[in-house]
């Protein structure tokens, strides 16, 4: 890796020079998703002293410079309303060729800095359509009624299904009494969206920047989009500045009010300034950080709307029909291999109807093959081996069978013991670093009952292979438990922005509604390119 220092932040051209002219700089070296001392070891290969590192930098601004930045962003706010989503769609499409041209260089840097293999990054970036530009405007236009709380409704333009789960009796009563009333009403205008992104999976800050900039979508007339300020992740600071630069090259006004910076959480003056200035706060971070942000919010700006995306767990469920779908184990293997299960979307426990041993055997073969085509990153293998050991120790008691070998870079185990809440929790926790616990179930409707033992606020996605007639009852049952997104097997790591993200739909950024969460059944786009990995 060459020694060019890369920017771990992004500022639009019109404010960059002004804000940075007297900034001091902080630099760091990234390797394997962690900040390292110069010359220190890469995570995952302890003892190696020459692993590639990526130097990054970001400015440290004085209080006056922060104020100047906020003023500059406010002065550069772009268009709001329906036009904004359309502009983003067009800009992203136009930016794609230049991004593709720079991809080889960026892939090398992303791989070195995040620790994920180039093959995994390539597949994820090429195969994923997280930001499917063509669906953005349609997603922002969606205005469900209370009928969505009583039955699944089909998205009129995108084809997937949506259901709203109100929290509390009042919401349930409204669903019955006023099914035709609108769920959303416009939120007060937002001058600034404040975002926080964490982790080493690329793209989180970009999603927040994009959604945050659309928070004025319900505004009418000549209202302007909010300014956007996102705290970038120190563990993956390169991806978002790269994409925003490409967008700026084709539509500079669109991102003229957007900034992606790095700052310290424990700077009370700065945090108070930022929170007081914001009308919407969005955070994708661990629960402790979100709790800390809640504390800041309570002290500085109690009325600030806050969209929380804490750490989550996801699962896969396969109906008995998997046995007649030869590609099912491969697709399921994909769901538990991307990002080495460090992502909230990664399927942990696989609930399987039918012959679970046959499934586990097939899954083991597919994960072995995927390990060659989609090598794991620097996520320490010792945790995978620890899971292997933990289950190996249980093989004497019956009900537990290992299918992978100690030397495999993944673990697959069938656990057919009687489970209580503690067993399920430990199984879920064991499933990181490409570890799959296969849980035989008599009927997929047993799954929501099992999930009841987990905190609803930590549940996220369900990758699914199920006959269509069983889909809605199952989706309703797991949605009621807290699962917020269902998508086809093999698409676990590839959600689309148009659908529920932790219970929030894209229009939520500019709307108010009663407490509750959306669960969505995403439409089934082609997965051919991914399944060929």
């Amino acid at each position, binding site marked *: 890796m060459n020694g060019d220092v890369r920017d771990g932040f992004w500022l639009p051209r019109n404010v960059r020079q002004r804000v940075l002219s007297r900034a001091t700089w902080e630099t760091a070296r990234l390797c394997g998703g962690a900040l390292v001392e110069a010359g220190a070891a890469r995570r995952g290969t302890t003892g190696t002293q020459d692993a590639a590192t990526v130097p990054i930098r970001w400015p440290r601004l004085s209080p006056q410079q922060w104020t100047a930045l906020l003023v500059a962003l406010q002065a550069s706010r772009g268009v709001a309303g329906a036009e904004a989503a359309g502009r983003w769609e067009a800009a992203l499409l136009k930016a794609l060729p230049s991004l593709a041209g720079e991809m080889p260089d960026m892939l090398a840097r992303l791989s070195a800095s995040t620790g994920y293999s180039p093959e995994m990054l390539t597949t994820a970036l090429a195969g994923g359509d997280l930001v499917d530009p063509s669906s953005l405007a349609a997603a922002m236009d969606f205005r469900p009624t209370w009928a969505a709380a009583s039955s699944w409704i089909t998205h009129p333009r995108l084809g997937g299904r949506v259901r709203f789960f109100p929290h509390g009796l009042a919401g349930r009563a409204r669903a019955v009494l006023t099914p035709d009333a609108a769920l959303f009403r416009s939120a007060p205008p937002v001058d600034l969206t404040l975002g926080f992104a964490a982790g080493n999976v690329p793209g989180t800050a970009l999603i927040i920047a994009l959604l945050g900039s659309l928070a004025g979508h319900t505004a009418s007339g000549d209202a302007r989009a909010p300014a956007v300020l996102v705290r970038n992740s120190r563990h993956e600071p390169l991806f978002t500045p790269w994409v925003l630069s490409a967008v700026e090259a084709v539509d500079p006004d669109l991102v003229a009010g957007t900034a992606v910076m790095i700052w310290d959480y424990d700077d009370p003056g700065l945090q108070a300034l930022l929170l007081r200035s914001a009308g919407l706060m969005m955070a994708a971070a661990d629960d402790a950080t979100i709790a800390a942000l809640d504390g800041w919010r309570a002290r500085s700006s109690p009325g600030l709307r806050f969209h929380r995306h804490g750490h989550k767990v996801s699962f896969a469920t396969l109906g008995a029909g998997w046995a007649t779908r030869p590609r099912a184990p491969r697709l399921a293997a994909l769901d538990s291999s991307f990002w080495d299960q460090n992502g*909230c979307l990664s399927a942990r426990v696989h609930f399987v109807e039918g012959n679970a041993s046959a499934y586990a055997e097939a899954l083991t073969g597919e994960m072995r093959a995927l390990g060659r085509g989609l090598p794991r990153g620097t996520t320490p293998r010792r945790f995978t081996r620890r899971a292997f050991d933990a289950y190996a120790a249980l093989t004497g008691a019956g009900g537990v069978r290992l299918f992978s070998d100690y030397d495999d870079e993944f673990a697959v185990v069938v656990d057919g013991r009687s489970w209580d809440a503690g067993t399920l929790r430990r199984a879920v926790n064991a499933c990181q670093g490409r570890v799959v616990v296969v849980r035989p179930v008599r009927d997929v409707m047993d799954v929501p009952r099992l999930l009841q033992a987990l905190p609803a606020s930590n549940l996220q996605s369900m990758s699914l292979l199920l006959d269509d007639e069983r889909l809605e009852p199952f989706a309703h049952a797991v949605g009621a438990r807290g699962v917020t997104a269902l998508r086809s097997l093999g698409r676990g790591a590839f959600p689309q922005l148009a659908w529920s993200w932790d219970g929030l739909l894209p229009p939520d950024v500019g709307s108010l509604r009663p407490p509750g969460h959306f669960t969505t059944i995403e439409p089934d786009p082609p997965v051919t390119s991914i399944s060929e990995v």
Partner: protein
Amino acid sequence: MALPALDEFFSLPAAQRGSLLVEGIREAHRYHFARNAAYRRTVSARGVGAEVTPERFQRLLRPAALTFKSYVETIGPFPQDHPRAFLAWLGDQLSIALPADRGSALRRRYLTMEGLLADTERIFADLGLEMVTSSGTSGIASVVARDAVTVDLAVRSFFAGIHRAWGIARDAALVFVMPEDTRVAMARSARLGVKQLDWAADTSVSYTMPFSATPDLIRLRAGRTFHSGPRGIVESRVLHPVLAWADKRWVARTYVDRTLARLRALSAAGRPLMLLGGQTQLHAVALRARVALPAGSRVATGGGSKEEYPFTSAQIRADLEVAFGGAPVADVYGMAEADWAAFECPRGNYHIPPWVYAVVTDDAARVVPGPKAAGMLAFFDPVAGGDLIPPFFQSADRVTLVNGADQYDAALACACGYDSAYIAGGIRRVDLMDEAGCAAQL
């Protein structure tokens, strides 16, 4: 093959030490593989049979926490509710056959884990079984069995260590900022050692913690694991707050008072002493008052801070030095699963006893070669580990190990003069996966 006695290892050349220990590990493996069901299951799954070559030694290492907390997977976090199942689990973990007829001597259930462990010791008194635990601040304690032989080895190892590394001899008074009645391994080793070596016959020994640190009290105080149902409600809403309150308002004040009183009395008498306790406990004493300890005294900290604490180790150490009149402050590193402890020397290195074959492993669980290597500490203790449990363990502590295993470079020998394997620099617990993405741990 007969291995030398513990003391003899101090005088053996490093090369000879290494080859002896390699043979000792192979022999110990053979012994335990034949007798220990849990061990055999684990290493067999890793492709190891009764014979093992040094290149595959890393496959013998069992994660310490995984091994001694594995009762949770089979009987849940409260073994006292299932004594027979606990006994079956214990028998599975040991390389001796527990007499089959003793299970009936256990009650159908116990109110506390302490009750169960005490009764287990009672019904196996003829084996000299001692049940020790980790500190259990996570809410789930490691439960480790020792027999008379391993207790003796652990005690001798501990006291040989403090004598060798710190020069603490029998004329020194001992002040332990610990409860006298506890199952936490290092504190119990100290208490058993004092008793076994009859230390109190020559000098003063005192314990200043004013309560019994049973596993149940530690669990309730930590507040992370409660029973379900009404019992859990009482535990979480009554007992935990009361214990937390008592800890803050009464325990802390009392042990600080008692410790200071003891230190002042010994100082007045001019007796050199060793003050041993947890970092944060000693810090509480140091923050209250200053006592200049007599010449030849030492302050020893044991165990890292497991809870949020607003001072760094360096700050604590500086405060201790000031408070205790410049007495040398050193740390001791140990774990419930080990029958040894590593004592910090004046150079800041933690010396591992010469009869322990220590290695570090990388993130793929492979041994990192070389006389100076960084990784996760693991150890084989074929000499003092005893015959009860295979003494081959992988810790969750990241360290830099110098002159470990059979890798020796004379140029790297510690300048303090104690020529053993040592941990250079700090020790960092990395039990959990570093946060990488957005996947939750529940």
